[in-house]
């Protein structure tokens, strides 16, 4: 790599740096010693609450400008102590692309949003137009200057925020979870774009992200692992894969690396496992093939009766554009199903049709064979519970107990019957100890469980969840998904709307793929994620396990992926039992 050979000029230097929020009893960061050199591309990983976002805030000046606290030690950016600078001067050195590109869209059009920093610098109109055009061309958005944020896809919005920080000609680019709201294929393009800008414009790039595998799809100089407010590792991706520190921290390592480990292969730095492209296949081929052959095919459970089926459903808001076209499917009792597809493909609308929020124009929905056409929202809600993506959008009572009891109280259930039901729902969701707590004391993941409990309390047969794991790190993701799995084993049919491929692969044997309002796939998740055609049309990505299998010449790559999933379920099951 050319960058490493150049002489090293430090642009970011943490020395014995620590930070404590005024609102918290303990410091969030301790003894940070870290140097990042000019032109480096660094990935910052860590579980939620590890302090990696706080570290990012220290770099861009949100700490101490917006989030107050006590700083110890020193942080120099481009040789200047940050304590002595204000956020404005810092923002000329460090450009930040925030996680939620929707919420940070300030302007009313692309051009205006990109120009925001220039406006604040009192740049004249002529010069402003010129710069905006130049920068938006770099991110391929130059043709869309007049578009409003509502007309853009998630990936495009991110490009706009990217351009918005590049107008300042900053030396350091900081990306705060750039993949969080993107579907897999768009995420891949985003990483490509970051890589291109890093090479062409010679910037220093820092990416904060927990989707390690997706970032490592392109070159990264170093990975810095943060946990409990300290730096636990600072090494090249190849070394990191060999070091075996990620799983213990609750960070997911790339799936293909996990597969190697399952096959009993000792990963060493010489294997170059940092990227699948660089992986030394000769060393791993034999043991991997051996492992694959030794796996026993699992019996598939017998199919049960259909609980929810759709017969040629179509829906449109306006005459011009059909949101859903001729969708038929059948979901069986006790299944765990994922509905996947790009943003705007119609998957949320499908959920709305099922819940009765909007009425289908054509076709019929059946619940256990019964026509649901005349059912009101309220009637459907007895059978089908709906959990929104953002728990803050659902919780309306200050106390957990009241929140969970709300649905029953509305239905006029007598108070003495409510309490045992609420207790049961809280117990299932692992919230019994918090029964008398206020909602505000809970973490995001716990709030999510409160919303699930408040729906479960009404004892629905089907639970629909919109992006149940969005914004969760691997640890919380596993926690939520294992919980849903246990609910499922108690007989609740679970339908998840998602674009998380890991979730699909590991937890939902059945996946329905929607693209452009049409159903383009309805099969097992393994089949879908090993089908390059469907994956491409639905903006998914073929799993790296499949690629690994193809590269090593395994005869039936899909079967290999299935073996991996079965093996993983087996080990995880044992872990859970051991606990």
């Amino acid at each position, binding site marked *: 790599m050319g960058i490493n050979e150049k002489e090293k000029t430090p642009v970011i230097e943490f020395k014995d740096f620590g930070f404590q929020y005024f609102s918290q009893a303990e410091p969030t960061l301790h003894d940070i010693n870290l140097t990042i050199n000019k032109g480096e591309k660094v990935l910052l990983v860590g579980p939620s609450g590890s302090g990696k976002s706080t570290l990012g805030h220290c770099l*861009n000046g949100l700490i101490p400008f917006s989030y107050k606290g006590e700083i110890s030690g020193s942080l120099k950016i481009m040789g200047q102590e940050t304590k002595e600078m204000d956020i404005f001067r810092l923002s000329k050195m460090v450009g930040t692309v925030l996680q939620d590109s929707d*919420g940070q869209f300030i302007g*009313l059009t692309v051009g205006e949003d990109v120009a925001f920093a220039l406006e*604040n610098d009192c740049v004249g109109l002529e010069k*402003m137009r010129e710069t905006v055009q130049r920068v938006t061309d770099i991110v391929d958005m130059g043709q869309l200057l007049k578009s409003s944020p509502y007309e853009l896809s998630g990936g495009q919005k991110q490009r706009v925020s990217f351009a918005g920080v590049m107008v300042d000609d900053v030396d350091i680019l900081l990306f705060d979870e750039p993949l969080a709201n993107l579907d897999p294929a768009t995420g891949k393009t985003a990483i490509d774009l970051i890589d291109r800008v890093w090479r062409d414009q010679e910037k220093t790039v820092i990416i904060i992200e927990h989707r390690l595998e997706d970032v490592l799809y392109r070159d990264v100089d170093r990975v810095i692992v943060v946990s409990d407010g300290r730096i636990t590792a600072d090494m090249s991706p190849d070394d990191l894969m060999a070091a075996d520190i990620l799983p213990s921290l609750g960070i997911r390592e790339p799936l293909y690396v996990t597969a190697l480990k399952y096959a009993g292969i000792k990963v060493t730095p010489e294997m170059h496992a940092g990227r699948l492209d660089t992986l030394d296949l000769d060393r791993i081929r034999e043991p991997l093939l051996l492992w694959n052959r030794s796996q026993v095919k699992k019996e598939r459970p017998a199919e049960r009766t259909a609980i929810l089926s759709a017969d040629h459903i179509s829906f449109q808001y306006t005459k011009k554009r059909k949101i859903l076209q001729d969708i038929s499917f059948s979901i069986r009792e006790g299944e765990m199903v994922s509905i996947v597809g790009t943003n705007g493909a119609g998957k949320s609308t499908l959920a709305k049709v099922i819940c009765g929020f909007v009425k289908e124009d054509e076709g019929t929905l059946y619940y256990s064979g019964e026509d649901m056409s005349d059912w009101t929202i*309220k009637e459907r809600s007895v059978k089908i519970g709906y959990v929104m993506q953002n728990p803050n959008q659902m919780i309306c009572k200050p106390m957990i107990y009241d929140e969970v009891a709300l649905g029953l109280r509305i239905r006029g259930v007598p108070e003495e019957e409510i309490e045992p039901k609420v207790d049961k729902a809280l117990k299932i969701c692992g919230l019994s100890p918090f029964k008398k707590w206020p909602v505000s004391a809970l973490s995001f993941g716990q709030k999510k469980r409160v919303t699930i409990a408040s729906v479960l309390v009404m004892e629905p047969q089907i639970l629909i969840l919109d992006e149940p794991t969005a914004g969760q790190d691997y640890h919380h993701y596993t926690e939520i998904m294992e919980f849903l799995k246990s609910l499922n084993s108690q007989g609740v049919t679970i339908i998840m709307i998602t674009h998380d491929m890991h979730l699909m692969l590991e937890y939902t044997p059945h996946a329905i793929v929607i693209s452009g309002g049409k159903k383009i796939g309805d099969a097992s998740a393994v089949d879908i994620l090993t089908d390059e055609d469907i994956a491409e049309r639905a903006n998914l990505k073929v799993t790296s396990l499949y690629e690994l299998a193809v590269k090593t010449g395994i005869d039936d790559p899909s079967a290999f992926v299935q073996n991996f999933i079965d093996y993983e379920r087996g080990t995880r099951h044992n872990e859970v039992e051991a606990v």
Partner: protein
Amino acid sequence: MKSKLFDYIDRDNFVYNLSGLTKLLAFVCFTFSVMFSYDIRYILFVLVLSFCFFRISEISFRQIRTMLIYVAVFLLLNFCLTYLFSPQYGTEIYGTTHELFRFNGRYTVTLEQILYQVTKILKYASGIPLGMIFLLTTNPSEFAASMNRIGVSYKAAYALALTLRYFPDMIRDYQDISLAQQSRGLDLSKKEKLGTRVKNIMNIFVPLIFTTLDRIELISNAMDLRGFGKHKKRTWYAGKPLGRNDYLVMLFAAAVLAGSICVSVFVNGSRFYNPFV
């Protein structure tokens, strides 16, 4: 859809292409001229003008239907209350009494009272379309730019523009939250008693407020990071340089205002036009 209520839709016509500053000044001038004068002839003239502008701006009726209903209710209420509380105000102003018919002494219907009240209604009726034109044909950011240009602090102007800009988002949030709560059994339809309905709506507002607060934190961080508030001044990407039409319209608006004052001073000798003497 409801969320279209305050949505700015870009169109290409005479009114849309005017600068926000021009529209703001014209709106102020026209409104002031009808508020100042009680001459029904002049008010009718402005009313016709404002309807003309309305036509030119190509605002669709659907966009303003809800607003119109509120305005109509307000005007009707205003009309009735004026009569209820000061049924003889017309006589007082114009100094004559032309009785039409009488119920009792106080509520005698006079031509003067009718003229007074009709004039008042027309005042509102001519001002409101102009306000709507201004709101619906001005890009919120450009609106902020115009406010800033006539001396309002840019921070205040931007805050206002952001509110307008996020209003549709909030309505969308409201709809989403409302659906999720309805699926938990919350009844917002007219079947429910008013008291319960109000309580149920509260259950939507609490999450709405929290989601909005999240939004605000995010946006204000994003703005800080990109240097908002660094200088005393800022420039505007969306600001339109004033063109020939802008100056013409401003001149015309000023003339209308001047006309209103002239009519009062030279023709009527007071703010009232008195056909009864």
